[in-house]
């Protein structure tokens, strides 16, 4: 197990992409993949693809059958499956939690899946599993940072931070309270009116405040 983990970490970004692509192409075509097909999907030349495939072969993750067809080995398939799962998980975090548009989420997930430490991935996975799926789907909240100036709504949930929740409560920011955005732009904090007070909230924190928009405004601004 230990050795396996080490081997996993040694894979480069490109190698992971190859595995993932082989998995996808394999599923689409139902069998082996030619070097040309693989290179075409990755958008590179066959010559440079060959180099990486050789290395994957050395690692025992792919094998090349006669006629040059490339197959994932059992170990390679498992590895590719994990890479793909990680991709889906990160994309889900971007779309479901951060409410990033699909295309951007897809692009960013492609990049982020290679950059994250396994520990971070494990935590992210835990986070998503523990997220109440219903809450995400139904309550239709958005992060405070996504509200425009003048929009208002109800604070539904504060994600994380015990200490910060206590401080927020001290300033009147508790779940159920009604807030109106007075300023929200660029890198400046978000300014909201809560009760009869104005509170400035740093952007990092503001993304953790989930707001249910007032119905009238949802229609207005779509």
């Amino acid at each position, binding site marked *: 197990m230990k050795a396996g983990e080490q081997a996993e970490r040694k894979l480069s970004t490109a190698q992971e992409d190859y595995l993932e692509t082989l998995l996808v192409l394999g599923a689409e075509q139902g069998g082996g993949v030619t070097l040309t097909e693989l290179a075409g999907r990755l958008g590179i030349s066959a010559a440079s693809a060959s180099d990486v495939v050789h290395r994957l072969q050395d690692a025992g993750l792919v094998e090349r059958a006669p006629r040059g067809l490339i197959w994932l080995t059992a170990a390679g398939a498992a590895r590719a499956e994990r890479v793909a799962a990680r991709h889906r998980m990160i994309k889900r975090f971007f779309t479901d939690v951060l409410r990033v548009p699909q295309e951007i989420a897809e692009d960013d997930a492609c990049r982020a899946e290679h950059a994250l430490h396994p520990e971070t991935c494990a935590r992210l996975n835990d986070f998503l599993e523990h997220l109440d799926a219903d809450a995400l789907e139904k309550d239709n909240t958005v992060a405070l940072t996504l509200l425009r100036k003048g929009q208002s709504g109800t604070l539904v949930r504060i994600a994380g931070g*015990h*200490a*910060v*929740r*206590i*401080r*927020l*409560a*001290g*300033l*009147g920011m*508790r779940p159920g309270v009604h807030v109106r955005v*007075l*300023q929200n*732009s*660029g*890198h*400046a*904090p978000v*300014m909201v*009116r809560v*009760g*009869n*007070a*104005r*509170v*400035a*909230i*740093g*952007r*990092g*924190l503001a993304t953790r405040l989930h707001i249910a928009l007032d119905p009238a405004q949802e229609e207005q601004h779509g």
Partner: protein
Amino acid sequence: MVEGKVIRVAIIGNPNCGKTCLFNNLTGAHQHVGNWPGVTVEKKTGVYEYGGQTYEVIDLPGTYSLLPYSAEEEIAERFLYDEAPDVLINIVDATNLERHLMLSGQLVGLGIPLVLALNMMDEAEQQGVRIDAAQLGQMLGVPVVPMIARRNKGTAALLEAVARLAQSGALSTAEVNYGPGVEEAIKEISSRMEGEASRIPVRERALALLRGRAACASDEGLLEQAGALRAQLERRLHDTLENYVLGRCYGFAHGLARMCVTHSTQARFNITEKLDDYLTHPVLGLVFFALSMWVTFELVFAASAPMTYVLELGVEGLRGVISAALPQGLWRSLLADGVVMGVGGVLMFLPNIMLLFLAIGVLEDSGYMARAAFVMDGIMHRLGLHGKSFIPMLVGFGCTVPAVMATRTLDTRRDRLITALIVPFMSCGARLPVYTLFISAFFAPAWHATLLLSLYVLGIVVAIGAANVLGLMFFRKDFSPLLMELPPYRLPTLRSVVMLMWRRAWMYLKKAGTLLLGASVAMWLLCSFPRDGAALADDDTQAGVTRSQFENSYAARLGRTFEPLVRPLGFDWKVAVGLVSGLAAKEAVVSTLMVVYGVEESASGRDALQDELRADPLFAGKPWVAYTLLVFILLYVPCMAVIVVFYREFGAWWTAFMTVYTTLTAWCMALCVRVIGWLAGAGV
């Protein structure tokens, strides 16, 4: 109530609800009232008499709840538990009553007679908020006094209410219901605490124990039981106990507000939000910010010129009087050279300081200071700092001492320390006389402003670099998010602005009068001794003789000892002596150089010193050496007063670190500047 006993009254409330103002009204204490959240960072006390009885008033730091989050709140919480006052005044903002009553909910159970000061009644009325004070008092079980602290209205009624409460010792009958689970746990703990003698009601102690305040436990077993109960509760509540309890307090406040507050349905024009549309606008806000800073600096540096001139004349006059009245000799030299010249140089700078704090007072009182922090937060955040760090840094341009103290407005130790560690790089006002002396001595007038500005900018750049390096070195993880209340805009009151100005000016003068005079006299002693017999008998005030005698003095020896250290920067022993004396206070560099160069009678000491400096082969024709020196003076360890304050705030280790790292930074930067000058072919 025992006759002759001093009754202790504490004032508690959210930041920015007029606490300090009320404190001033009660005690007449000369204290600053600002509009910046957290202005009251220290425990302040005062005394008043009412009906033949003496009362001691303690102004507690602003606190949002008794569940401490910041250093200020910890002070307030600990005070209430450990040093029970006889009466507690809870001041609340009538315009935002519900939120303020949440704190009241946590106070009613403490077992301290409580009076509610309902402040800002005028603003509430303007906003169409009507409060039924009698109903509120009945429901809360405490006297309620409506008032307008800014206009000193309602103070008499409050004094009377406090006096009556001190007599009767009546406690509030209201209590927050913490919900079935918590209430049962409290009962369980309470039953085991019965019989323990304590001022704090058993219910409150039981809750504190549940929350993990070990000090409330009489034995280990009880503490363990409380811990187990808490864990059980939190699993059931799906929440931390603190958060849940706070939620119940919130419910309590909400209930009170619903019964006692009515809002007029009419929509009112909100001047604060209209102004904020522009003043915190992403673009216009920054423009206005830059403009306000520019006005501040113009006010401080241009408007003070005539006043400085008048002071200069006065000091010259005094010096003339002393020279004429006293016979030539040691005493005349001490008074005229040591005392008058030393303190004179300090006084010259007083107008700057007064105008600076006049400006800061207006910024704070008007409510703009918090907006400045708001518009700057985006930028400051990327520099690894907090929007709130901006205030100490801005104050740092006036004086590093209050700036280090102002770091207390920041919420976490990380932010406080990083800000305090970089604040010394903000060029304080005391460094200005040194800059102007050298810049006007060595550079053409057209360059003065640019060079002066370059020093300020360099300080800021170094500070930003230091903030990031320090952040990476010591405080990788805990970055606290910005979270602050923006007070409404108000017209600054003349009284509080002028009070602030006088306080700061007085602080500066006191520092000048003691530390600087001491430093100046000490320097004079070091420069005048050892003296040979001839000099004693026939003290000649001719510069040449004094200087030849000076070459032999302790000061010169001290300077020579340090010379090898500053030699790589292109300085000599005379400069080293000045730098050493700058430890006493940076402005002392000027007065020391006057003594070192033996500057004597002339129309103006500064002009004479400038002539001497220009004639010195060290600087002659080499203005870049002067600029290198200014860079060093900008960055090296600030005065002893800063070291003392820093020690009090952050302890010995960090003080030692601050002293060493600022000086090392200064040395490296000065060397860089010298090398750059050398590469550019400037005279070095």
